[in-house]
Structure formats: structure tokens, C-alpha cells
């Protein structure tokens, strides 16, 4: 277990330089593009004095290295800047949009794994049968069809034609809001009506988000499991007389799951970055939409804060993935 502790420490050390690299690169890119911080109809009656005031407030008149230094200091003291477009503190805005995306990502990843893993196992176990073929074909369709088509199709079928599920927006706010994640908060305060309402609203977006991911996981699971099943030690287990189920769950799965963990981790990180298309189609105000709209508006502080957040998120997710790795596969702890 000493290896494990060392491993964790080593991995944590790589955090800081990676983060700094992310900040510097975003900063440089967002400052290479010349544009005017446009506040709505501000330009209509533009007062040159006010423009100068704004430039001063956001330190836009300082040389780039001063701006970078000021920014890094602010980040680590909890001041993630003020949005040029909305004049609200960015951290506050992120605390509204991020929980929504977080819920979407969790639900999405949940569906990915719940659908992808069993389908992959089934395909592997019934190798080369009709079921296997069906699952393979469905997989290909699942990850080839573009996101927006899936989202619109689900909306049309389940909301418009069948009317089974709500097609846009978030559910009812729970009685008390703690974290901004309505699903979680409604459990915490016992508001089951809000929980069900929110869950129903999240179903279509998260399923449409999950479909390509589930397809990928299914194929990966199948391939990885087939690989593992063809290894020597499985034959040994069989020779020992272990039941098929025990072999599957206790021995084969543990080995085969390793690539799934990596991919699932990356997928989760991607979902957390915000699924802009899903959020737009289902009218959910999440991180993806916020960042894309801010990029269009050249809202530098938001772009930098958002990139920093996503970088941080990826770092944490990868860290957790590596931990899981090290837990599942002891050999990794030595690296």
C-alpha cells in the first residue's frame, strides 16, 4: 500500500505545471484575436470615457505579462474575474451552470455504463451469434449518427409524437436548493415531486448524450472481454472447474474493465465540458452553452475561467481514473 501512497503523491505533483500550462496557452490564444468587448447595445452611444474606464477595470491596457500575472493571482484567491458581457462574477455564474452540466454528465455517464457494459458483455459471451451481430450494428449506428440528429429525433419521438416525456427545460426547483443540482437537492430536502420532475426532464437529454458513448463502450467491452477470455489464465480457471459466471465476474471482467475505465473517464470529462448541442436543443442552461456563447462574444475572462475549469475537471477525472486503475491493476502502482 506504500506504493499506492507514493503513486498518489507523484500524480498530484503533475497537477500544477499542467494547470499553469493550460492557463498560459488559453491566455495567449484569447489575446491574439483583436476585438472590442461589446456589451449589448453599448456601441450605439459609445462614450469614449466609459470605454477607457472599462479597459482600465479589466486591465486591458496593461502589457500581456502583467495581465497574466494578475490573472493567476486572482484565480488562486477565488476571484475568477467578472464577465465583460454580463458584469457578474464568473464564479457565481459558473456555480449556476456547472451543477446543471454535472448532473447531465453523471446521468449521461450512468446510462453509458448501464447500457454499454451489459451489451458488450452479452455480445462477447454470445460471440458470433445473431445477438452479437445486432449489437455490433447498433453500435456503429449509435456512434456514427451525429449528436444533434439523435437529440432532435428523441425530442420528436418521445416528446412531440408520444408525449411521454417533457422535451425542454429543467424540472421544478426543489423546496430548498443547496448545491444547484436539483436532483441531488430534492433528495436532500425530501421533495420527491421535484425529484421525479427533474429526472423526467433530464431523461431525454442524457439518453441522447449517452447513445454514442454507450455504443463505443459496448464495442470496447466486447473486444476487451474477448481478448481477456482468450488468455491462458482463463483456460486454467476453466480447467480448475470454476463455474462460468465466477470466471466472468471475478477474473475476466476485472482485467477487461481496464480500458473501459480510461474511456469512461475521458467521456465523463468530455460530458462535463458541456454538451453544447444537447443543451441548446433541450433548452438547458449549462456550461457548454455558457462557454460557447461567451467565446462568440469575445468575453476573455469567461473564456479563460472556463478553460481553466475544464482543465481542472479533466485533471481531477484523470486522477480518479488513474486511482481506479491502480486499485484494479496492482502493476500500475509501480510506475
Amino acid at each position, binding site marked *: 500500500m506504500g506504493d499506492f501512497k507514493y503513486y498518489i503523491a507523484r500524480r498530484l505533483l503533475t497537477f500544477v505545471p499542467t494547470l499553469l500550462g493550460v492557463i498560459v496557452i488559453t491566455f495567449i490564444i484569447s489575446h491574439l484575436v483583436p476585438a472590442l468587448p461589446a456589451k449589448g447595445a453599448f456601441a450605439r452611444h459609445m462614450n469614449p470615457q466609459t470605454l477607457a474606464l472599462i479597459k482600465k477595470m479589466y486591465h486591458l491596457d496593461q502589457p500581456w505579462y502583467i495581465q497574466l500575472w494578475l490573472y493567476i493571482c486572482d484565480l488562486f484567491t477565488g476571484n475568477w474575474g467578472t464577465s465583460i458581457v454580463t458584469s457578474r462574477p464568473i464564479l457565481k455564474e459558473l456555480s449556476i451552470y456547472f451543477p446543471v452540466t454535472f448532473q447531465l454528465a453523471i446521468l449521461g455517464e450512468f446510462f453509458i455504463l448501464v447500457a454499454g457494459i451489459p451489451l458488450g458483455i452479452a455480445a462477447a459471451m454470445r460471440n458470433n451469434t445473431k445477438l452479437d451481430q445486432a449489437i455490433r450494428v447498433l453500435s456503429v449506428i449509435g456512434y456514427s449518427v451525429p449528436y444533434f440528429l439523435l437529440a432532435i429525433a428523441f425530442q420528436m419521438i418521445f416528446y412531440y409524437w408520444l408525449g411521454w416525456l417533457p422535451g425542454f427545460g429543467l424540472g421544478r426547483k426543489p423546496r430548498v436548493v443547496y448545491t444547484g443540482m436539483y436532483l441531488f437537492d430534492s433528495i436532500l430536502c425530501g421533495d420527491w415531486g421535484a425529484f421525479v420532475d427533474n429526472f423526467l426532464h433530464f431523461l431525454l437529454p442524457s439518453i441522447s448524450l449517452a447513445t454514442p458513448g454507450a455504443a463505443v463502450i459496448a464495442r470496447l467491452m466486447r473486444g476487451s472481454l474477448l481478448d481477456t477470455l482468450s488468455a491462458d489464465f482463463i483456460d486454467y480457471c476453466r480447467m480448475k472447474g470454476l463455474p462460468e459466471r465466477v470466471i466472468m465476474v471475478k477474473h475476466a471482467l476485472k482485467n477487461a474493465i481496464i480500458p473501459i475505465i480510461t474511456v469512461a473517464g475521458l467521456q465523463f470529462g468530455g460530458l462535463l465540458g458541456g454538451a453544447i448541442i444537447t443543451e441548446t436543443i433541450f433548452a438547458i442552461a449549462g456550461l457548454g452553452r455558457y462557454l460557447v456563447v461567451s467565446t462568440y*462574444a469575445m468575453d476573455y475572462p469567461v473564456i479563460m475561467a472556463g478553460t481553466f475549469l475544464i482543465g481542472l475537471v479533466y485533471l481531477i477525472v484523470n486522477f480518479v481514473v488513474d486511482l481506479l486503475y491502480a486499485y484494479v491493476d496492482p502493476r500500475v502502482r509501480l510506475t
Partner: protein
Amino acid sequence: MDAKTMAAVLLIVGLLVGFAAGYVFAPPKIKTQVVYRNQTKVVYRNQTQTVVQVKEYKPDIVVSYSGATPPPEKLVGFSNINPAFFSNKSVDALLQAAKYETNPVIREKLYNVIQAISNYEVPMIWLGQAKARRHYWSWMHFPFFNPVLADNQWQFVTKDPNAPRPNEVDVGDIGEPESLDPAQTYETAGWGAGIQLYNRLVFYYGNDSKNVVPEAAYAWAMSKDGTKLYFAIRKGLVFYDPWDKKTFDMTPEDVAYSINRIIESANYEKVDYPEWIISDFVKKAYVISEKDMEAALKEGLVAPILGKEYTINSMDQWINLFKEKFSYVPWHKAKTEIAGYVVIELKRPYLAIMSCLATNVGSIVSEKAVALHNSTKDPLALKWYNEHPVGTGPYYLVSWTHNQELVYEVNPYYWGEPKPTIKKWVIKIIPEEESRILALQKGDLDYGVVSPQSEDKMEGKTLQYNGKTWKFLMPWMGGTFDITHIYLNNKKEPFNNLYVRQALAYATPFEFIIKQVYRGHLMPVSGVIPKGMLGYTDNVPLDYWKTMSEEQRIAKAKELLKKSGIDPTKYTITIIYNQGNKPREMIATLLQNEWQKLGFKVKVQTFSWPTYLKKITNGDYDVAILGWAPDYADPDDYAYPLMQGGWHFATVKVAGLAVANAKPIEMAGVKLLVGPAP
């Protein structure tokens, strides 16, 4: 030769000699000098004894200016010059004259001329003004349409009790307000919300977009020199603050505070900067006692009401006049006692100030609520009021989840009439067109934004509910004051040539654009001022905005190009538009098509909105497409920002004396003279 023949010959010769002599000895040059009425100068004779012939030009209006400062070196579009960088000294004098004119008859004439000039000079091509269309289910009832207002007044809207969700209205919108603080919002969503949350000194009622009616003020009057406005403040309005769970009575101090707060807010960081609508014209506002008010009345005041002027000499006369003239306004009868009096001092007389006070910027906020949430760094509580609007209006804000939804409910302390019938209004932000249309079709939304392209999807849609069949309605409402323009960079060649601009205007396919790009949601406009606004006139020199065939257009354009003397093949025109704006993309492509027929090389480019704005304000473009929406319902809000060329004058007098080197301008049926004062 007999006598008769001799006489005839003599006559003819005599005539011939006479003609020859007349020709030889006739004055070699006739100097024509135009002489004006009201002039004290006298006709003079040329020393070489040529006779001066006099032709009389009788102007209707004479505009004389003095102390002219030319445009600055660094020109910034929208700031110190119009975004088309058009600059003409006489036009600037006219614009300044019209801005500050206090006689409504002369002011209208001046704007008629400005309209005609905008049509002739065509600094930007006036593509058209928007035609509004409502999109809603037949269970909703909207009694009025007012082009000045950013949204319907919800207190007048009713919903059929057999409809889905009878006590709640769900609206599908494409974006959220940038702020709910009147000092910080400068876009449609924020101003639309302000109509329901606040009251202003004056407002509009019904379909009338030209005249203001009393709201928080019971009555108003102007000092004779036009620089002081007196308001009798209504008693009984109540602010509701749901966050502090308090109510406050609205006092005259709140009114004065609101105006001063707007002016002061320019010095702080805000979400947006609409305060110029008041601070450009208002010096300050303060409360006066009843005694001082009576003293002012005794000196004699003037009340502009419903297009007429009334002289006021006593309190009773004043109050009774307003009681009688506005008896048709429902809330005017609700509370009729006077709480006090407020004076607003203007920097210069400005007739349009009433329209400015009727905008969202004139909303009355609560001084006490601000005091509960301000700090030394933020004395006006700008950060708090942004998302916590405390007003006296018929609705209040329950919750605001950014970019997701806004929820409003009826204000239980609303003072006025009629009381709103719909308890809850939810604005759902659904930016994706498809999803919004689906939600509308299902009836999950009562009304919402339907873009012209999606209208056929909603055409004829019906819904069964509670045993009734409901229809989706899309009635045409009439012209709004939103205009679309094609800016030409007057600083650059070939747009600095008048005939080139006119040629490009003729070559613009107005009919095609209105039909195909806007699907009828646009109507042609004769110049800078939209129809329905004071100053609009059809009596303009050029007719490129009227319907004609494509061949006629190109022929006329080519004729004008020849007159201009330039060679179109030497020029490459780049038309720019902002990314994502489909109508403008289509217009740019259509213009490219038509203008290439004249011989120009035309390119089309797109930029993101901030870059686009930057290029336009720096004058770094050839042709750009933009729109203009009213800040307040007065022609000065259009003509001035869109045509002023950077010339400023210390004084501009209308009907002034003798002008030297004046320019006669005869347009729109008005004879004008513009020139420097002697």
C-alpha cells in the same frame, strides 16, 4: 421702288440695325444676386455699370449658425460621427436646429426636410422598417399593439379559462434580459420586463405611440422657456420588495432619486449604459414644496398634452385639465391624490424629453430599497438591483435562473387598474428555433418567438383541449420603428460620390429582399425616419424605395453611374455582415448579385459580432448591414445618430436673420435656407 416697298425696307433695315445696336451696346453680363426676405442688406450695383437683376427666393424657414467646430481628427462611428461617416455641414446645422426646436410645427417641417435629404444623399441605403406579427394560441387575448413598447402590457392580457394552465402564461423567448435595473438594461428583453415591473412618470396607453399619458405623475407642465418640467406626483403607489419582505410607499423623493440615480450611474461599472437617454438632456431633479409649486403656476406654465399646448395659471385648473383629458386611461382614475411635486431641470429645451421619460430608463426605483443594499463602493446598489428589481408595477420577479427561465407573479400591492388577471408569467429561454416550435405546437407554450422562416410550420395548427379546438394565430400588427440599413462608407471611394450612392440604392432589389429574405416582415421606408413617427414624409426626391422592376432598377442605376463619372470596374466592394445572421447573409449575397451587374467586383465577408462592431466604428469597411431600434419615440433619436457628421455649432437659430453664403434647400415641400449667421 415705290413708297410702300421703301417703307418696308426701311423698317426691316431699321429693325436689323436696332437689333445689332442692342446686341453691341447691351450690358455684357447680368449678375444675379439672390435676395432674401428679412434682409437688411441692399442690392448693390456693379461698378462697371452692369445691371443687377434680382430674383426673389422666399424661404419658409431660415437656419443660421455660428461658432462652427469641424469634425475631430479621429472619427469613431456611433460616437462622434454617424456609422456611415457621412459629413455635411448644412445637414449638421439642420440636425442641431431640429433637435432643440420648441415650436412643434417648425420642428415637424425641419424633420420633413431632413427625411428628404436622407433620401437624396442616401448616406446609407434605407432598406425598410419591420412589420410586426404576433404568434399565439387563440386562448390568449391581446387588446393593444403599440410599436413603441418592447412587450405587451401583461395587465391587459387575458387567457381563456378553458385553456391549458389557465392561471399561468408560458412564453418561449430566445434570450434573457441583461439586467432588470433600469439604469443597466439597454435591450428588448430588459425593457419588456421593465414595463411590468415598474412605473414611470409618463407612459403610453393603448395603440397611441405619439402621445404620453400620466402614470406615476398625475400632471405635468413646462416653464415658458422650456427648461423646467414640473410634475405633480400621484399618491398611493407602493413598492414591493419580496427579498426583504417589505413594502414602501412611493414618494416624490423616490421620483427625484430615480432620475438622479440614472445620471449618477454613468460613473460606475454597469452591465450596460442606457442612461444617456436622460442624462444627455437632464441637469437634475428635485422635490419642491406645494407653496413653490403654486408660485410657479402663478407665473404661468405651459402643458403639452395630446399634441396641443395649454396655458396653466392655477393648481385647480392644472389638476382638472389632466383629470378631464386623460379620463380614458384606466389607471389614472385609480389614485387621484397628489403626494408632492418634482422639478426636472433640462440643459436645453427639448420637446422629446417626454418620450425619454416614458422609456425604461425613466422607471421609478425605491430609494429605501437601494439604501438597504448599497455600499461605499456601490452607493447606487447597482449590483443588487441588477437581479432584484423593486418597483411599483403590476408584476414582481419571483425567480430568475439565468438563461433558463424568469418567473413573475402578480404584485399583491399593485395600486392601479386594471388589476392583472393572469397570476403567473413564466418566460422560458429556448434559444433553439426547432425546440421552441415543437413546444408551441404542443401547446406547452402560450406564445413565443417564431422566426419568419418557421411561420409556415405554425400555419393553421390546431389543438384539442377541454373539448374545444384552439387555433394558432399569426396576425399582422403594423409597422414598428425597427429599421434595417445598408451602411456605405462615405469616407471611402467610390461611396464619397453622391451619384454612386444613388446608383447603388437603385440597384438594390428591395422587392426581392422584402419578399424572400423577410417574408413580408419588412416594409419600404422613404428615408431615415420610420413611418408612424413625427417627421416622416413620402414627399421625397428619389423613388428607389418604391416598387419597380429589376430592369428599371438596373437601367436607372447605370444612368446614375455614368453621371458619377467613375469606372465601376476599377473598384472591389466588400460587403460584411455579422456571423450567424441569416437575413443579412442573404441580403449581402443578393446585393453582390445585383451590384455586379453594374460592373463592380463584389465580395462578401462575415465577422463575429464584436469584430464586426469594431470594424464599423473604426470605419474599416466598405459596406455593412445593420439595424436601428428606437431608444425613444422621437425623430431626433434616428436622424441625429444616423446622419450627424461631426460638425457642432455654438448657436443655431431658426428664423434667424441674414445669412451670408446660404444654401437654399427646397425639399419635401419646404423652402429652407441654411448658412452661417452674419
